[in-house]
């Protein structure tokens, strides 16, 4: 296990280095000079030079890459070209919206998918199974931002149960914060719940065809008892992997949903930064999202190897 973990850790570090290089180089080729963008077209050359010096734009590419990555390792993401405030602070403020939203959506998706998947698997071929599978087929096809608009129309505009957008901040209390995130979380969770319910069902059906389930049935357990006592635990392994992977999709997906609900999260930050050509913010947010995806994949791999010893020996 240790050897496997070290190997995966090395692969993680290499992936992060290459990802940071790719992001840095892509942003490097962006046309335009941040200093002249900040000071406007009428700025004097010596003022521009002074600002370039201050922002480190006069350094070589290698020096800038190294200072960017070493800064990030110490929590320093640089200074926003537009707002002149530390990017790390801006990102941290926005993460307090995006991260709880992704976690809330993940919890909802799991709470919907587990019962639906188990119900469908336990009634394979019956009308209940067909209905659940039909619903998941539809759930996968619905764009989450469209579903979000429909939720706003029904629950905010017509029924007035929730506000149509905005976020009061966590200072207003946990309930107010969670209430503001409820519709966005439902919109985000729906397609993921549909995928997860399908994986849960097919994983359970695979396990239910295994010999040990047949043995359990032969010992006198009913189909339902065999499902709950033996099949479910074994079927969870692939399901947990998908849940891990979904988290990163939810974090990235929240970027679009935040637009629908005008939530002050990472998504709005990144779109504002694109329109203001505040590339250092874009660079940092993208790196953070990629870091999250790579880290989650790493943890899922380790967790998978932990519960399934065959994987450790295979590598």
């Amino acid at each position: 296990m240790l050897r496997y973990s070290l190997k995966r850790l090395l692969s993680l570090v290499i992936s992060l280095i290459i990802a940071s290089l790719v992001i840095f180089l892509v942003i490097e080729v962006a046309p335009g000079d941040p200093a002249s963008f900040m000071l406007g077209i009428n700025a004097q050359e010596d003022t521009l030079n002074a600002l370039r010096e201050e922002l480190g734009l006069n350094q070589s590419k290698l020096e800038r890459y190294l200072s960017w990555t070493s800064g990030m390792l110490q929590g320093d993401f640089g200074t926003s070209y537009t707002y002149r405030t530390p990017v790390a602070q801006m990102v941290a403020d926005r993460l307090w919206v995006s991260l709880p939203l992704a976690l809330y959506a993940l919890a909802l998706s799991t709470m919907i998918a587990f019962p639906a998947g188990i119900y469908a698997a336990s009634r394979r071929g019956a009308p209940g199974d067909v209905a659940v599978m039909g619903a998941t087929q539809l759930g996968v096809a619905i764009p989450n931002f469209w579903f979000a608009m429909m939720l706003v129309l029904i629950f905010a505009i017509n029924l007035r149960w929730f506000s149509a957008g905005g976020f009061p901040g966590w200072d207003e209390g946990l309930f107010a914060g969670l209430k503001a995130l409820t519709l966005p979380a439902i919109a985000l969770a729906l397609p993921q719940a549909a995928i997860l319910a399908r994986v849960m069902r097919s994983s359970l059906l695979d396990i239910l065809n295994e010999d040990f389930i047949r043995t359990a049935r032969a010992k006198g357990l009913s189909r339902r008892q065999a499902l709950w006592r033996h099949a479910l635990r074994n079927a969870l392994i692939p399901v947990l992997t998908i849940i891990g992977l979904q988290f990163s999709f939810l974090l990235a997906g929240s970027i679009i949903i935040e637009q629908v609900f005008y939530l002050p999260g990472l998504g709005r930050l990144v779109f504002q930064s694109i329109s203001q050509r505040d590339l250092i913010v874009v660079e940092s947010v993208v790196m953070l999202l990629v870091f999250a995806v790579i880290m989650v994949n790493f943890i899922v791999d380790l967790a998978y190897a932990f519960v399934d010893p065959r994987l450790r020996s295979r590598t």
Partner: protein
Amino acid sequence: MKSRNLIIGGALSALFVAAALISFAWTPFDVTQMNIPAKLQTPNSTHWLGTDHFGRDIFSMIMVGARTSIAVALVAVGIGMGVGVPLGLAAAARQGSLLDEVIMRGNDLVFAFPSLVIAILITAVFGPGAVNAIIAIGIFNIPVFARLTRGAALPLWQREFIMAARVAGKGASRISLEHILPNVTNLLIVQVTIQFSLGILAEAGLSYVGLGAQPPLPSWGRMLADAQTMVSFAPHLALIPGGAIILTVLGLNLMGDGLRDLLDPRIRVERT
């Protein structure tokens, strides 16, 4: 039941492809023509799906929007297949080699950039547009096809008919092309329908946030973005493009399920 999926899915997909193709020659109204006196009409005999806030005919916009969605998704899937399948074949042919390792780790890396993140990066540098949306979705498709091809090709390399081809003196690339590829084609066809539907959803999402197709090119995602502030008094502006996206994606997914059942011999055996 199984062939019903294929028929319904195929019919829905064909409907939207036909709408896209017909839009090149004919649409009920000019999609760029504004008619303010006729704005925000609900569906009626003149404007079958109503009009938007500029009085443009929504039916015509849906037809031309189908063209944008299908074109973006089709080219993006083409990029994914064109690059991903050869990479997957090469990785499988040299399993365990440095090439295999580099290809698979490269794929892992691309997977770490969800298509939305790739689109954000590209847009930040080159500006928004349909072409950049195609590139973003296309890049994301590459590892999907590479992994699928490699996974399906690996067990084939252990089979007798491949050994026979090797004994006959065929090289790895010729075997990949002549024997491996035809045997993974069924799997690829099913994946194409899945990636195609994901491409339609991704294009809609990117256009919705302004990173995809730009005006005056109609796109379902941007129609939804325009509808957002008017959804309370003109819900048809959101319901119709949303319905078009859902029906297209549903059609493609059903077609994918139907094709998988039809093309996978194991499922055929189970059914008989």
